């Protein structure tokens, strides 16, 4: 992929690389397990997997500080794991159980964690963008120095409300990073078929919002871009756009046969650009870890994911009384 490298790769320790390897691997294995549970009928409805895009959230979160917020649309499992939400609670929400983050009432697309400042999990394409700017508005109002990561895809990038939001975010200098996760397909529509100009990172130019193109298969490049964007926002200069070029290996959702692209295209990406393999080879060639070390990590991740899956099966369905709770907060 011809992503322009606008940032220099930072020096990185083996410890840091291992952390990214572990976090990305957790997302991948978690998603594979979710796909499996979906196939078994334990997860229902829509289930949008993040496989292939792991470096995006892991890289962005690597530079975040405590109290920073994040919000995204419905391909959200990776974001939740990357900000430290418990895999057990996420998986149990996917299976619609009491132990899920939303007590089983939200599902794959609607999950939240006040504790981890994760504001969803939204099912309407693009709607999370003004919501994210609103979170940033609150932070600016409360003068707490926090920044909000507002994620959306190349598909959402054509929604009108994005530009209404860009205008107000720039006008009011809101501390928000607009992260465009460009995985190149809006469901089954390739970007070239839906989008008049390919460079989404320039979409803020009309509003004076700086933008940057980032290689989303390279976790270090993403982290470096995240640092730049956070610094910009925290210094009171207003919003920043990161177009992070990435690729989803699986279909749009579990029920997508993905006939709009060739198997070779997907395989080539997996073979040549895989973000986890990328870090794995850096770890090995840099002699930061041995094959055995990585095997141990794999085993550890597998155990976490299996534990999450078990929890998600054992946690009971919500009590029937839950149908009528959480509709109104007590006045």
């Amino acid at each position: 992929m011809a992503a322009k490298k606008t940032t220099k790769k930072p020096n990185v320790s083996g410890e840091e690389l291992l952390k990214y390897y572990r976090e990305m691997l957790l997302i991948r294995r978690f998603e594979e397990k979710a796909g499996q549970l979906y196939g078994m009928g334990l997860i229902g409805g829509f289930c949008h997997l993040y496989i292939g895009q792991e470096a995006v959230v892991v890289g962005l979160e690597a530079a975040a500080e405590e109290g920073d917020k994040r919000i995204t649309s419905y391909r959200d499992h990776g974001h939740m794991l990357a900000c430290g939400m418990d895999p057990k609670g996420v998986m149990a929400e996917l299976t619609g159980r009491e132990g899920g983050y939303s007590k089983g009432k939200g599902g794959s697309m609607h999950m939240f964690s006040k504790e981890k400042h994760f504001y969803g999990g939204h099912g309407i394409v693009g709607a999370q963008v003004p919501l994210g700017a609103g979170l940033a508005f609150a932070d600016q109002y409360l003068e707490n120095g926090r920044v909000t990561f507002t994620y959306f895809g190349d598909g959402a990038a054509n929604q009108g409300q994005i530009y209404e939001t860009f205008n107000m975010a720039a006008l009011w200098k809101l501390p928000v990073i607009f992260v465009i996760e460009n995985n190149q397909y809006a469901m089954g529509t390739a970007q070239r078929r839906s989008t008049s100009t390919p460079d989404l990172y320039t979409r803020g130019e009309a509003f004076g919002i700086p933008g940057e193109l980032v290689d989303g298969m390279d976790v270090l490049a993403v982290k470096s871009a995240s640092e730049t964007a956070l610094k910009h926002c925290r210094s009171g200069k207003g919003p920043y756009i990161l177009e992070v070029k990435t690729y989803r290996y699986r279909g749009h959702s579990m029920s997508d046969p993905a006939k709009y692209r060739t198997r070779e295209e997907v395989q080539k990406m997996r073979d040549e650009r895989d973000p986890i393999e990328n870090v794995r080879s850096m770890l090995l060639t840099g002699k930061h870890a041995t094959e055995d070390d990585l095997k141990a990590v794999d085993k550890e991740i597998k155990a976490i994911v299996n534990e999450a899956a078990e929890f998600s099966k054992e946690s009971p369905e919500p009590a029937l009384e839950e149908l009528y709770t959480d509709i109104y907060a007590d006045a």
Partner: protein
Amino acid sequence: MATEILMPALSPTMEEGTLAKWLVKEGDTVSSGDIMAEIETDKATMEFEAVDEGVVGKILIAEGTEGVKVNTPIAVLVEEGESADDIAAPAPAAAAEAPAAEAPTPAPAAAAPAAPQVDLTPDWPEGTTMKTQTVREALRDAMAEEMRATPEVFLMGEEVAEYNGAYKVSQGLLDEFGPKRVIDTPITEHGFAGIGVGAAFGGLRPIVEFMTFNFAMQAIDHIINSAAKTLYMSGGQMGAPMVFRGPNGAAARVGAQHSQDYAAWYSQIPGLKVAMPYSASDAKGLLKTAIRDPNPVIFLENEIMYGQSFEVPDLDDFTIPFGKARIWREGDDVTIVSFGIGMKYALEAADKLAEEGISAEVIDLRTLRPMDTGTVINSVMKTNRCVTVEEGFPVCSIGNHISAVLMQQAFDYLDAPVINCTGKDVPMPYAANLEKLALTTTAEVIDAVKQVTYR
């Protein structure tokens, strides 16, 4: 350890499918992500990927088999060195537990109704000094008082600050609270409503003004999908404590796109509260309650009412609770139920009916969600007849809902079918004579009362 591979469900509704083609054979090594088979559902042919790594020990279902039920074992995956033959009859796969939820016991259909318990306390203490105020001033005072009390409350909308409000409702607020808390937005309802909801998620208490609720159509996704549903979708973790307010319904001679009453639309949504005041005291007391409420509140005002004067209690802090109707006049022959500007017709009709010896009880619902149906039922148990009045469209109206409630909960007390006086089933015309015809009128309310009282 050997693992069974089960026939996957590849869509939310798939129960069985055809195992069209195996892309691996026994003895092949697979790793996670490799395509193992093609499976046909009723909608598409899907590729089925391996999740675990291992060796294909045995294929249990031959390709071309149709009608393979979801969760049937289709192959066995073994580890290097293991043989599928070693497997003692594999334990039957745990079928996906999808326990049919027992339907909650339905509420029993209303039997002989007991008189509902309702809140009959006066809205303010007897002897309270009153002052005359317009609805416009009452709304402004409500916002100003709540903004003084709570720093997180702010007002945003088109022309609310420097212009002092398109209808001058926010007159003077910018001067008192400054541009941080009284914020002019660009003309982008969808965007600023979304920013308002996000700010509420983030700990603020926004008041979002729409220049009219007709323009809130651009923002209705955020009102309903983002504001109303998040508390539920988050299992109670976060919601949107905020107010969406502005003029609603017909003004005068502004045509179809500026004249719609949205009372019934918003009242349908669980997670929203809906207030629609008539008098200035209710406008003030209900708006203060709305701003303090931890839920999203739709506050429906009316341009024609802004300049009308009423007596308002001269109290430092005065609120009207939600879900408490007000009985404007007591009567014995018929119950007229209305809200918002509809009260004008209801009260005028009651005056004229009194001259003809018909005694009407007039109830102002004040809030539509929650709705004080108890007060309506109690009244109908006395009068045995009911007419509802609103300016909105007739189909699926608030009046329709009240009729249904009365039929279910006070059927034995009704001596006549309930009549709903509503706006006509047409987009609002511009011509003065047609516009008048499109709205409900005092004369129509009087006619309806005569019908239900068989006069």
